[in-house]
C-alpha cells in the first residue's frame, strides 16, 4: 500500500506556452516544428522572458528514430533553439511522451534543481507511408503478443476495448459519431487545428467535389448519415471507422515552467500545477478481464484528485486523450466525470460540448486538432493554460468561470497515463 503523501516541494507555475500549426507539412522537420512552438511560447510570456533564464529542456518524442531516422533528439533541440549547453532530455512514453516531459519539468522545478524549465513535445509523422506509420505506432503495444501473434494494430486494440464496452452497456456507433462531430465542431474555432472544419463542412465539401468531378452527387441526410456511408467513412477496425481515429499529424508543443514564487515576474495571470500523477499498466491481457476501462487512467485520476484535494465535480474544463472516439468515452468515465456506461451519452446529450456543463476537448481534441503523438500531452496542457488564463481567443469558454482544468494523456492502450490538474490563482 502506498501511503506517502504526494506533494510538490515548491509550487510550480506555467508562464508561457504554444503549439505549432498542427497538420501535414512536407517541408518542416521536427526541428522546424519545435522552433515554431518555442518562439511563440517565449512571446506568450506577458512580461517577457530572457531565453538564457531557461535552465533545462525536457522533450517528449515517441519515435523520431522510425519516423525521421533520427535518434538522440534532446541535444539537437537544445542546439537548434540556441539553448546548448543547457541539459536536454528526450522522454518517451508513446503518445504520453510529452505528458511525461511536462511531469519531469514539474518535478525538476518542484525539487529546487531548476528555476526555469522548457517542456515540449514533437513528432514529425507524415514523411512515412500510411502503412509504415501504422506499423510504427503499433510498436507502442506488446509487439510479440499483440502484433506478431494476433495481428493487432493500434486502432484494432482500441476497437477490441470498444466492442467490450458496447456489448456491456448496449451502446452503438452513434455514440462514437457524436464524439467526432463534437470535436470537429470545436476544431472549427482553433486556427492551429489540422481540421478546422466541422463534419458538416467536410460533408458539404465532399458533395461539392463529387459535383465538380461529374459524379453522382451523394445525398446525405445529416452528419450521422454521412458517417454511416462506408465510401465516405471507411472501416478501419470494427467498430472504428476513419472518422473515429485521430489523424496522422506533424507538430510540436512547448510550455515554460517556473516556480510559483517567481511567476509574477513573468505574468499577471498565474496558473499553477496542483496535481501531477502518472500510472503504468501491462497490456490488456493483464487487466483481469475487464477491458471497458483503462486501469492506469483510473489510478492516475484518483491520485491526482487526492493530490489536488479536489473532486471531479470541481473541474471546469478538460482535455482528454481522444486518440479514438471510443477513447474519449472511456476517459471521461475513468476520470470520474461520468459513471461507467454513462460516458457514451455525454456527447449525444451535449454535456461535454463547448457550451455544456463540462467542456471536453474545446481545442478540437486529438481528433480535429491533430495528434503528433509526442507533442500531444503538452499541446493539451497549453490549451488548458490558455483557457484558465483567458488566452484562448475565439474558443475561450465564457459561459462559466474557469478555475480548475485537467489534462489526461495516454500512452499505448494505457501502458502509461498522466493526469495533471491546473489552477488559476
Amino acid at each position: 500500500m502506498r501511503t506517502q503523501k504526494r506533494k510538490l516541494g515548491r509550487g510550480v507555475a506555467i508562464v508561457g506556452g504554444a503549439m505549432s500549426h498542427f497538420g501535414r507539412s512536407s517541408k518542416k522537420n521536427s526541428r522546424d516544428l519545435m522552433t515554431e512552438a518555442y518562439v511563440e511560447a517565449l512571446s506568450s510570456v506577458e512580461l517577457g522572458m530572457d531565453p538564457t533564464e531557461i535552465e533545462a529542456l525536457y522533450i517528449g518524442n515517441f519515435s523520431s528514430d522510425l519516423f525521421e531516422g533520427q535518434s538522440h533528439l534532446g541535444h539537437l533541440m537544445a542546439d537548434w533553439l540556441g539553448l546548448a549547453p543547457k541539459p536536454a532530455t528526450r522522454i518517451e512514453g508513446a503518445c504520453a511522451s510529452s505528458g511525461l516531459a511536462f511531469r519531469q519539468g514539474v518535478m525538476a522545478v518542484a525539487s529546487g534543481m531548476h528555476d526555469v524549465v522548457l517542456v515540449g513535445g514533437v513528432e514529425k509523422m507524415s514523411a512515412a507511408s500510411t502503412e509504415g506509420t501504422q506499423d510504427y505506432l503499433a510498436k507502442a503495444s506488446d509487439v510479440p503478443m499483440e502484433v506478431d501473434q494476433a495481428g493487432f494494430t493500434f486502432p484494432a486494440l482500441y476497437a477490441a476495448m470498444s466492442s467490450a464496452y458496447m456489448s456491456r452497456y448496449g451502446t452503438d456507433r452513434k455514440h462514437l459519431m457524436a464524439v467526432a462531430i463534437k470535436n470537429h465542431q470545436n476544431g472549427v474555432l482553433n486556427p492551429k487545428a489540422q481540421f478546422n472544419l466541422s463534419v458538416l463542412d467536410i460533408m458539404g465539401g465532399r458533395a461539392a467535389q463529387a459535383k465538380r468531378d461529374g459524379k453522382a452527387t451523394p445525398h446525405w441526410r445529416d452528419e450521422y448519415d454521412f458517417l454511416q456511408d462506408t465510401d465516405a467513412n471507411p472501416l478501419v477496425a470494427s467498430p472504428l471507422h476513419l472518422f473515429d481515429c485521430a489523424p496522422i499529424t506533424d507538430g510540436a508543443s512547448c510550455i515554460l515552467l517556473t516556480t510559483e514564487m517567481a511567476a509574477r515576474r513573468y505574468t499577471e495571470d498565474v496558473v499553477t500545477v496542483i496535481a501531477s500523477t502518472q500510472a503504468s499498466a501491462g497490456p490488456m491481457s493483464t487487466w483481469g478481464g475487464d477491458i471497458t476501462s483503462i486501469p492506469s487512467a483510473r489510478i492516475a485520476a484518483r491520485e491526482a484528485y487526492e493530490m489536488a484535494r479536489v473532486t471531479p465535480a470541481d473541474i471546469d474544463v478538460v482535455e482528454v486523450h481522444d486518440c479514438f472516439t471510443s477513447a474519449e468515452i472511456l476517459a471521461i468515465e475513468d476520470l470520474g466525470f461520468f459513471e461507467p456506461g454513462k460516458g457514451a451519452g455525454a456527447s449525444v446529450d451535449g454535456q461535454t460540448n463547448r457550451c455544456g456543463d463540462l467542456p471536453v476537448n474545446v481545442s478540437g481534441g486529438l481528433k480535429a486538432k491533430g495528434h503528433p503523438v509526442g507533442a500531444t500531452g503538452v499541446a493539451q496542457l497549453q490549451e488548458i493554460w490558455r483557457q484558465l488564463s483567458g488566452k484562448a481567443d475565439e474558443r475561450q469558454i465564457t459561459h462559466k468561470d474557469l478555475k480548475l482544468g485537467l489534462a489526461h494523456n495516454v500512452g499505448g492502450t494505457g501502458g502509461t497515463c498522466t493526469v495533471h490538474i491546473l489552477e488559476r490563482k
Partner: protein
Amino acid sequence: MTVKFIGITDYYEGLTKGKIVASKCNKCDDVYLPPRPICSTCQARDMILKELRGEGRIIGHTTVAVPPSNMVDKGFSYDRRYVTAIVALDQGAIIAALIDMIGSEYDGEVIHVGMAVRAHFLVQPDRSQNEPVLVFRPM
C-alpha cells in the same frame, strides 16, 4: 551458476509442441500468458509452468480492414479482412490471438463478446516462423 527465469521462450517452446504454456504463481495461483518470472498480482517469484487446455471466451474483438504489414504479407487487405480478439481462458489467463475463420462457415459478423472458443495451432505454410501460430476457433 546462472539462474533460469521463466519467460516468453517457454511460451514459444510450448507452441512448437502444440501446447499453450502459461505461468502459475505458487503463492496466489494467478495464471499469466505469456509465462512470466514474477507474479504481477502478488510479486512472488515462485512461479511454475502450466499447460492450459485452450478453451475460453472472447472478451473483445475486431474485424481488421487496415492490416499491419505482417498481415499484409499474409494476404490480408481492406477487401480481405480478418478477426482478432482478446480471449479469456477458462483456466485464468488472457491472451490476444487471431480468430481463425478459414475453412469454416463463420464470418466477422457472428463473432461476439462472450462467444466460446477453442485453441488451434496453425503451422505457417511458408515456414516463415519455426513455431505454429496460436489461433482460436468458435466452438
